[in-house]
């Protein structure tokens, strides 16, 4: 019996288990998935929890329900991977051998990386919304909000779902308006970047939107510490941003286990061949989702597109064939912009988000890099698609893992040459 081992039962790991169980004969291949936690979270929903738009039931389900028959779920913490012995050692000492290993252990917020972030104000005046507990604690604080300075903050890049903090700011503007609190609230967006977003064309559009919504932007802010006495963010160049309520995105790091295994870079992400998704220097290890160091967004849509490529490449590897399927860095992200509207971004390694229509040229119906009500409905519909289609490993109609240039308005010079490696 051969062993295919998947570490992590989040979006990427769950999709891979579903896809590969359908392809690998059960008599020859055992598939096991290891994860510490029993619950699967619909993470895009964490954005809506603080505003009471979603309840707990929208965002949490048992992991085991999304794994197919014939896949064993091992609920355990991983101590380390031992690539030379082709084994994974669990925290309880048990060892799992593998013929092929998929690393899908993701990324997570680590607030302890910023001095003072987890001191007295933590979960009272200082919040994050990238965890279930965090989003719920923030909901409680917002319920008591009567006005003041609300600061939305990104500690450093890269982070999971890089548009989420902007969406939070837009939704806060909308929610405060509906509560009659907008005029009593100063909204500030603090970023380590030189603009609103990482990609220039989208950054320009989104900066305009922040401006229109009267959200003040503080750029190039490299946070040194959170001062809990004065309730202020302090940067390395000694600038202060005071807050009454701080909604921060803490530094994101890959799993500690990656570091213990000696497989990570300085942020515990695994160096990964960006087109084949094989771990650099490790024939039998593949990486998918946020755990990889590939230069595209850390996002569920990326994991979904990567899964189509990785399934082909794992099967080719097992048959001793060259890894011919190529991942192009495709990401597809809805951005909630408040008041029932949204944006859609579609981009890859070569092309940053540009205006256009999606998925069909001219017809759309969704607008790229433009605000529309339909984009908002698309985002809401995505929850159903996630639980019922995406996690099962089924394709989403008309949306290919290779990004299409059709329907996009591409400014001169925006399309970059193809990357090596």
């Amino acid at each position, binding site marked *: 019996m051969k062993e295919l081992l998947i570490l992590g039962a989040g979006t990427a790991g769950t999709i891979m288990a579903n896809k590969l169980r359908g392809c690998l004969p059960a008599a020859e291949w055992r598939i096991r998935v290891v994860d510490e936690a029993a619950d699967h979270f619909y993470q895009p929903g964490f954005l809506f929890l603080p505003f009471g738009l979603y309840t707990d039931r929208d965002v949490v389900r048992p992991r085991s329900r999304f794994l197919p028959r014939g896949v064993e779920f091992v609920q355990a913490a991983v101590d380390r991977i031992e690539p030379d012995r082709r084994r994974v050692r669990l925290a309880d000492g048990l060892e799992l051998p593998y013929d092929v290993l998929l690393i899908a252990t993701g990324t997570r917020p680590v607030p302890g990386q910023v001095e003072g972030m987890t001191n007295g104000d933590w979960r009272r005046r200082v919040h994050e919304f990238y965890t279930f507990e965090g989003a719920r604690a923030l909901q409680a604080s917002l319920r008591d909000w009567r006005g003041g300075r609300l600061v939305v903050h990104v500690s450093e*890049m*890269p982070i999971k779902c890089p548009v989420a903090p902007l969406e939070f700011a837009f939704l806060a503007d909308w929610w405060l308006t509906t509560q009659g609190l907008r005029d009593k609230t100063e909204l500030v967006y603090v970023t380590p970047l030189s603009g609103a977003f*990482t990609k220039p064309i989208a950054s320009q559009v989104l900066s305009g939107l922040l401006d229109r919504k009267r959200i003040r932007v503080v750029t190039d802010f*490299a946070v*040194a510490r959170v001062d809990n006495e004065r309730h202020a963010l302090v940067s*390395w*160049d000694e600038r202060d941003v005071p807050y009454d309520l701080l909604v921060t995105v803490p530094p994101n790091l890959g799993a500690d286990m990656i570091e213990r295994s000696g497989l990570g870079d*300085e*942020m515990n992400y695994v160096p990964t061949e960006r087109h084949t998704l094989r771990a650099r220097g490790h024939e039998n290890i593949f990486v998918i989702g946020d755990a990889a160091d590939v230069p595209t967004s850390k996002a569920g849509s990326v994991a979904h597109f990567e899964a189509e490529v990785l399934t082909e490449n794992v099967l080719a590897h097992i048959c001793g064939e060259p890894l011919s399927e190529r991942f192009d860095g495709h990401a597809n992200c809805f951005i909630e912009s408040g008041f029932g509207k949204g944006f859609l971004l579609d981009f890859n390694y070569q092309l940053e988000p540009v205006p256009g229509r999606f998925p069909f040229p001219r017809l759309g119906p969704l607008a790229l890099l433009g605000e529309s009500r339909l984009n908002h409905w698309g985002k809401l519909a995505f929850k159903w698609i996630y639980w019922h289609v995406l996690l099962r490993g089924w394709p989403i109609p008309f949306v290919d893992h290779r990004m299409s240039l059709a329907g996009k308005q591409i400014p001169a010079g925006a399309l970059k040459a193809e990357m090596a490696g």
Partner: protein
Amino acid sequence: MAQKNIAGHTVDVDAEGYLTRPEQWNRAIAEALAQELNLQLTDAHWKVIEFLQSDYRERGTVPGMRRLNKVGGFATKDLYALFPDGPIKKAALIAGLPKPASCV
């Protein structure tokens, strides 16, 4: 593509003054670029510049703060003391490297 005369050399630069052809860089140019930023280069500055250059040669991108901390062994506080305001941007400019792209 703009050109710039500095320390007796003509170099190609982008709109923000970053050298676009690393092979045109030399130590005299670095000293002059530093002076334009009101910096006098010391051994401590050079250690950072040399780390950026060797890491860039190895990986093809300007390292971020975490890599400077963990792999280079430089503390963030010290980097801000050496290159006030934007240590990586300033050090990359002096080192003749592209402006650090803050990723994805």
